[in-house]
């Protein structure tokens, strides 16, 4: 059968027969890098178009429908426009930091790609602390935003960056605690182990109450962490023009823009892995016949289906709720999400010890 595992296995075999092991490593790293960059470009194009379409439909509009059939080439045209635009650096800006910040945003997004399992046995790096790695790397994102805001030499940029710093540092906590709930249930930080532990049902069904609570908290916290509405205080178009990327133009702006969508994809992929079983098909306990039917759908389709469902969910409430004020934002985190998730992790631990999950 043609599966991603098969293709990569055969490629690896062929490379090993043809080249020495050092060259195989180099070539495979190159292939992985090109594949990640290709996936970035494809995701950027697809997600921007999806976002605009979802936004338009929710607001009873049509959305982009002029470029190409059904407006499918709209984001390609936008990318082309951004590519040929001049990347200005303001004269008062710290040139090195200003030009370096978008690349950090991009590097973070690329590093986050490593432990995501896209299909069965199809993963760049199956490290044993995958979930911890993701939460550790994703907090580097704030450095690029602070760097961009500070180097721009613009008060709006700096305000946006500072807000974003406060926001990401606080929401990291509840995102981490809600991830920890699933780690407690599955007993592992390894992405593969977490997915394999959901072979007889996804954690959102097996973990019942604590899993539901942590799922809701996770979705809220990651929306805040990726700086998307209703938590887009770092950008806040109506107050700060564009926040930390006010001074950016051309391709440097495009990198920030792309990094935002890649981050959305990655947090949704992580949500899918933790709560909805990653590439694991929809299995119910020990119903062998039913589980076999579900196994016929390829695992990559399961993964991308779940991820895009979560992305749609995040887009849905982006276009429904108004933006929070900075004090409301911090209230929500420190007075509601954090106490609830602390209580929730106690509940989850008790349930895991007593074996009350299915």
């Amino acid at each position, binding site marked *: 059968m043609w599966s991603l595992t098969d293709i990569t296995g055969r490629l690896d075999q062929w490379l090993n027969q043809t080249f020495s092991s050092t060259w195989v490593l180099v070539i495979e790293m190159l292939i992985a890098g090109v594949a990640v960059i290709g996936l970035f470009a494809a995701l950027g194009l697809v997600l921007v178009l999806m976002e605009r379409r979802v936004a338009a*439909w929710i607001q009873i509009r*049509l959305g982009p429908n002029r470029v190409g059939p059904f407006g499918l080439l709209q984001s390609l045209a936008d990318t082309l426009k951004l590519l040929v635009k001049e990347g200005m650096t303001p004269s008062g800006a710290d040139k090195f930091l200003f030009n370096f910040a978008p690349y950090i945003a991009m590097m973070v997004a690329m590093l986050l790609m490593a432990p995501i399992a896209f299909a069965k046995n199809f993963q760049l790096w199956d490290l044993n602390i995958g979930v911890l790695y993701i939460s550790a790397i994703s907090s580097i994102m704030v450095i690029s935003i602070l760097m961009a805001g500070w180097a721009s030499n613009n008060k709006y940029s700096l305000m946006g960056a500072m807000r974003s710093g406060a926001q990401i540092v606080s929401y990291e906590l509840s995102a981490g605690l809600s991830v920890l709930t699933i780690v407690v249930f599955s007993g592992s930080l390894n992405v593969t182990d977490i997915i394999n532990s959901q072979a007889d049902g996804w954690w959102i069904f097996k973990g019942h109450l604590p899993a539901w609570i942590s799922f809701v908290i996770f979705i809220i916290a990651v929306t805040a962490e990726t700086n998307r509405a209703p938590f887009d205080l770092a950008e806040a178009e109506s107050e700060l023009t564009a926040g930390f990327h006010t001074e950016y133009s051309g391709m440097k702006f495009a990198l920030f823009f792309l990094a935002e969508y890649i981050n959305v994809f990655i947090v949704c992929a992580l949500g899918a892995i933790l709560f909805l079983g990653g590439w694991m098909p929809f299995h119910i306990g020990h119903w062998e016949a039913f589980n076999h039917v579900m196994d016929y759908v390829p695992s990559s389709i399961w993964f991308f289906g779940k991820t895009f469902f979560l992305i749609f969910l995040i887009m*849905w409430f982006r276009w*429904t*709720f108004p933006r929070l004020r900075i004090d409301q934002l911090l209230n929500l985190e420190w007075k*509601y999400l954090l106490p*609830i998730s602390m209580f929730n992790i106690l509940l989850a631990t008790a349930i895991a010890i007593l074996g009350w999950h299915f």
Partner: protein
Amino acid sequence: MFLIKYIKEVFGAIRSLLVGMRLTGYYFTHHKEIITEQYPDNRDTLKLADRFKGEVVMPHDEKNEHRCTGCTACELACPNGTIKVVTKFDITPEGKKKKAIDKLVYHLELCTMCNLCIVACPSDAIVMAPTFEHSVFDRSALTKILNKPDSKIMEGVE
């Protein structure tokens, strides 16, 4: 009690968020009615609101007659000098001299559509037209003469 109030607040908040999401979800799934105008496509059927203020025009009837007496009330009312009334003197059949307009010059590029000239006009000679496609390649094309050539004042308008 504090805790009960807290939990109630959380549930109330989640409920209200779900109400909002249900509405937008309804709009998303019932993608039929579109509230935006598909502008260049529906140019022929485009219907603008009655109170839309696009530019100042002077309506003429089928005998090429307008209602402007040349009183310059609009020129005085205009806050940024958009209108210039150039008057002349007609000779009436009885041999009297009568003031009338030669040209009513309207600078669209200066106009802010504030409607003060229309309010000031004592004889309702000028109105706001619902047009908005004012783009031209040369700025001088925006300076318009509102009365048509050889037009006369309507009978009975003083």
